[in-house]
Each structure stands twice: as C-alpha cells, then as structure tokens.
C-alpha cells in the first residue's frame, strides 16, 4: 500500500511546529538571561562568547525536549503501527492522519517520538550519575590530596585499579542479567549512595558544629532527605512511592558511577594538592581550623572552576557511555527508546534503510557537542578571572 507523504518542507515545518514548547521556553530563558546577564555571575558571562551561547542553546534545547516530551512527541514511543513498517520520513499514518516525521523503524514505531522520549532517559541518568560520581570522587579525593601519605597511596591504587579496566569490559562484567540475580548491584549502590549523605553531614558539621541548634536542623534535613532517596534507590522501598528505580536501571546507574568516579577522584586530588600550598590554607591552619573544615570550606570552593568544567565534559562522556551500553544491548530494555539502543537497531539495517539511524545519531552527537562547547566556554571564562 502506498502511503501519502508530506514532502521535504512538510517534514521541516512539521518538526519545527512539534518542538514549539521548546522554542517558547528557549526564547524566554535566553531573553531573560541576556537582559540580566550582568547580574548572573559566571552563567551570565557565558553569553559573552558565541561558543558559550551555542553550547547553552543546544543543552537547553535537549533539556526542554526532555521536559516537554509528552507534548512534543505525536505518538507513543513503544506503540507499533503495522502499516508504518520501515515507512519513509513524512509518511502519514492513516488512522490518526498525523505524519511519521522521521519515518518508521523496523518494528513500525515512530522514529521521531522515540528520539524525543530517548532524551528523557539520557537527561535523567547522565547528569544524576555524574553528580553521584562527583560526590564519591570529591569525598575521597579531598583527604587523599590533603593528607597524602598512606591514605593517598591506598585510594590512588584503588582508583588506578578501576581506571586500568577498559570501560567496555567493565560494563560486560557489571551490567548483565546474571548479575542482577545476585545482590552485587545493591551492595555497590549501598556503598556509593552513602557518600552524598556523608559529604553533606560533614559539610554542615565542620561549619556549624559550634551552633548545635542550627546544626541539628541541617543534620536532620540531610538525613531525612538523603535517607529517603537512599531507601528509594538502594532498597526500592520508598514509603511514599515517589522514588523508584527498576533493577536494570539501578544496574546501569551503579556501573556508570563506578566507571567515572575514579576520574573525578584523580582531578580533585590533583587540585587539592595544588591548592593546599596557598596562603589562605596556611592562614586557616594557623587559626586552628580542623582539616575537614579546610578541605570543604577553603579548598573545595577554590577548586570549583576546573570542577564545573569537568562536570560538563563528564556529563557528555557519560552520555557516550550510556550510548555504548545501549549499542551493545547491555542493561537497557531492548524496546527502550534511548539513543544508543536506537543506533544499535538501525545500524544493522543500514544497507536497506538509513532514516531510522540518523535521528538518534544526530541527537546524541549534538547533545555531547553542546556540553563540550559549554565546557570550552566555561574554561575560557574561568581563565579570564
């Protein structure tokens, strides 16, 4: 049966039209930021360079796409329309009368909707995993760099141990259906996810330990929120039922955190070793401040520039790792709409149809490119100061 198509310009305008919430949100954010950029500090400085604006726009574009995915995507990413099997871009689905803007894939699903919903998976897991890795790497890297000596040797050895593993081998060992039957992911999650709680408790204790009432409130808040998320993520037993994570997602999450925290550790350690020779650290030591106060309130704030740049790059790298997992079919469900899985499915049939392959490829590449440009602009700005 011959399907009606809407032609090249139809596709172009169709795509632009479907993304309208993104354009609206982008326009508001960019206009407001441009207006008040003088008062926005580092973020405002990004608007001074073309690279910064380009990077921010791309990242915000995907962020808003993930937020408004339900409105943007015309179809359910998992629903199959048998007529639309391998349909060419712009073919019109007879029942609803709406077009498959980027065509249909091998299983007759809408490629456009899958790309849009794929952004949700990537934009939740990649930044979250990076933040957890940042917490783990910072909490361990600070004492390693500050104290040096034995603690540094042991932690560095462990970090190098993980770094010596080729990432792909690590994933093949850590992200398998077999390992989900054991309790290893839970154990690793239990170890990794305790770090943010330790980090914030120490952070508040060192600063406000002398003011018991304020500290008690902060500690209670940290333990309550941290414990709530911890129970939800590790034991999947959130009493309120808001935070829940499927075993395969937990598995991926843990593996990604595991693979990227040694990198953060090394960077934090190097920065601390450099910063601890500065005068203000010596001044704090003379004042009689404790080592953890100095690490968290003197050293860490001064290491933020390189760390922010690294986080940007690392989110991009994590996105690539997620794509690798999807490409090898590890962890994510085979029908999951994420970009890596999409690339895997379509790259096998590249000789016959190329249209299902291009949207996830371009999406992944542009998002990582946006993050890299952002990191570049941030680095340039922090060098200027």
């Amino acid at each position, binding site marked *: 049966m011959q399907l009606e198509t809407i032609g090249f310009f139809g596709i172009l305008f169709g795509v632009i039209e479907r993304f309208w919430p993104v354009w609206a949100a982008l326009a508001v954010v960019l206009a407001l930021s441009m207006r008040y950029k003088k008062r926005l500090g580092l973020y405002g400085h990004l608007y001074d360079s073309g*690279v910064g604006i380009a990077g921010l726009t791309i990242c915000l574009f995907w962020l808003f796409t993930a937020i408004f995915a339900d409105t943007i995507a015309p179809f359910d990413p998992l629903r199959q329309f048998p007529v639309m099997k391998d349909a060419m871009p712009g073919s019109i689905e007879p029942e609803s009368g709406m077009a498959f803007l980027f065509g249909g894939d091998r299983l007759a699903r809408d490629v456009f909707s899958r790309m849009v919903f794929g952004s949700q998976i990537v934009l939740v897991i990649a930044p979250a995993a990076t933040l957890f890795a940042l917490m783990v790497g910072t909490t361990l890297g600070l004492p390693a760099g500050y104290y040096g000596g034995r603690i540094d040797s042991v932690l560095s*050895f462990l970090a*190098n*141990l993980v*770094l*010596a*593993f*080729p*990432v*792909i*081998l690590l994933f*093949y*060992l*850590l992200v*398998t*259906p*077999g*390992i989900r*039957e*054991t309790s*290893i992911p839970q154990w690793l999650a239990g170890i990794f996810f305790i770090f943010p709680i330790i980090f914030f408790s120490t952070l508040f204790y060192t600063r406000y330990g002398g003011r018991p009432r304020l500290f008690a409130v902060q500690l209670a808040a940290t333990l309550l929120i941290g414990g709530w998320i911890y129970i939800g993520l590790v034991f999947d037993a959130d009493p309120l039922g808001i935070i829940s994570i499927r075993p395969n997602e937990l598995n991926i999450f843990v593996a990604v955190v595991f693979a990227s925290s040694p990198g953060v550790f090394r960077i934090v350690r190097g920065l601390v070793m450099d910063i601890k020779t500065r005068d203000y650290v010596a001044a704090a030591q003379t004042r009689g401040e404790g080592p953890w106060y100095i690490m968290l309130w003197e050293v860490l704030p001064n290491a933020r520039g390189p760390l922010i740049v690294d986080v940007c790059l690392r989110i*991009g790298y994590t996105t*690539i790792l997620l*794509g*690798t997992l999807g*490409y*090898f079919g590890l962890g994510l469900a085979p029908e999951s709409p994420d970009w*890596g899985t999409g*690339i*895997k499915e*379509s*790259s096998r049939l*590249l*000789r016959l149809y*190329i249209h299902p*392959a*291009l949207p996830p*490829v371009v999406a*992944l*590449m542009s998002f*990582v*490119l946006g*993050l*890299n*440009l952002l990191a*570049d602009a941030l680095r340039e700005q922090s060098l200027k100061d």
Partner: protein
Amino acid sequence: MLSFIIRRLGVMALTMLCLTLVVFFLINLEPNLRKLAISQLDMRASVEDQERWLQRNGYRQNFFVRYGQWLGVLPKQPNIDPNTGRAVPRFSFCDEPATVRYSGVLQGDLGCSTKFKVPVAEKLLPALGATGILMFWVMAVMVPVSLIVGVLAGMREGSRLDRTLSVASITTTATPEYVSGVIFTVIFASWLGWLNGSAASATNQGVTFYNFTLPVMTMAIYGTGYIARMTRASMVEVMTQQYIRTARLKGLSFNAVVIKHALRNALIAPFTVIMLQFPWLLTGVVIVEVMFRYQGFGFALVEAAANNDIDLLLACSLISVFVVLSTQLISDVGYALLNPRIRVR
C-alpha cells in the same frame, strides 16, 4: 631510573593480580556458571544435569583453589571418569594431560575457549594479529593528522584558522565510534558506494582500501580531536615562551621558529596523551570490530562475554589490562626521557 621502573613493574603485577581476581569472581558468579552449563549442554537440560556437569568439570571446587589453578600456582587435577577410572579431558577440543601438574597462566596455558571450541591461545593470537593491523593503521592516520591540526591551530592563537580547527576538534570528540561509524557508512557506503560497509572480508582475504578505510576512519576520528586539542594547548604555551620571542627578534622567519624551536618542545605533552589513548582505543576496537564485523580481539571479547566463555574472557581481560598498564608505564618513562627537566628517583 631503574629502581623507578622496577617499582612500577611491581605495582603493575599487583594490579593485574587484583584485577584478574575481580574478573574471576564476577564471571564465576552462580548465574554465569548456570549460563555456561546451559550453553554447553542444551536448553532443556534439567537443573540436576547442569549441576552434575559443573561438578564433573571442576567448577564446584573452592574459589581460591580454582583461581590458583588458573594462575598456575596450584596443581590441576585430571578429570577421572568414575566408571572407567581413566582420565578424560574436560573438553574434547583441547587435550588435557592425564597427570597432575601445574598448568596456568604463569606456565603459558590460557585454557580452553568453550565458545569457539579451541584452546584460547589458538583463537586469541590470530585475533590479536588482526587487531594489531587495525591499530597500526589507526595510529598511522590519527597521530600525524592530530599533530598537524594541533600545531596549525596553536601556532597563532586566536586566529581564524585556530577557531575553525578548534571547533572541528571539539566536534570529533563529541562523536563516539558508534555515531561516526553510522554517519560514515551512510555517506560512503550507502550514498556514494565508494567503500565497503563491512570489514568481514578483511579477515580472510586481506586488507584493502575498499574494505578497511571505514573502520580505520571511524576509530581514528574520536581520538583525533582530543590529541589535537592537547597539542594545541601545548603549542600555545610554547609559543609564549621567552626563547621563541628571542628567536623571532633575532630575525628568524616565523616558519623557521615554529619548525626548529617550537615543535620539539610542543610535542612532549602529546606523546603522553597518545600513549594514554590506548585504554580508549580498546573500547573503540570493540565497537568498531562489532560494527564492521572484523574478527579481531574486540570481536572475541564480545563473543566471550556474551557466552560467558570463562577462560577466553579472562585471557582477554588479562591482555587488555596489560596493554593499559604497560602504555602507562611507557608514557611515564618516555616523558621523563623526553623532558630533561623531569628527573625520576
């Protein structure tokens, strides 16, 4: 210097020991052993059959005993058939000695591949050779291109050429192999038809421009941008040094200054970066070999992992960890040799 290398080799051996122990633990988890038993028997084998198979082939011995046997510090017992009382090899496709003896990695025996049904060494050596060819061509493309791009960009910081090349290198660092592979295949194989979208023929019919360009290009592109950016940063730094200004003020032409004075000093840092690219290249090898169906090391690794081929997977991880660690060592030693300002004790 010598004591530094010896100490590093010691740490390296310790790291390899720890890592193989971890890998050994992970692939001998209960679900993985079951998977192996099912793949070796057939899909409908009962749980008792699987258990008996695992028992008979020694998978139920103590974990550390088995690790010791694999390593070659504990003796391997021959498999005695209880009915006949004679020794039978565990796998018909590799002959095992019928006597008790030490036969592990330290003795050079890597074991049997249950997936390919050959001794591991027999499978792995040709695969490594194939990957070596791929790696050679990738390096031959990636290193010169990235160095030239980096030097050209860093020569005049802030110029239009610098901006263009920098954006180009950022773009390539944002395209992992599975992305650039798809894009290149679409352009060069599907649309233009210049190149072959599969390197399967390269394994048995030899490497040609037609079947090998796409894998090499795909793999080289991801690392190129990164090395180029490091070279650029190093070049920019060198170009602001006093001796460059002196050379310029002496009246040397810009090109002469770049080639004679700047280049040598600017290329020290990229050397380290290139050596440290190997761990990344290993991941790239796996993706590219799977994508273009090239029968190399990465292909063997994926097959081993997918079928829980214990001995092959252990050998693969041993090799990759060895490659990563020895390149780190070479990069440290080379850096010290190249840079006279660094002295290791």
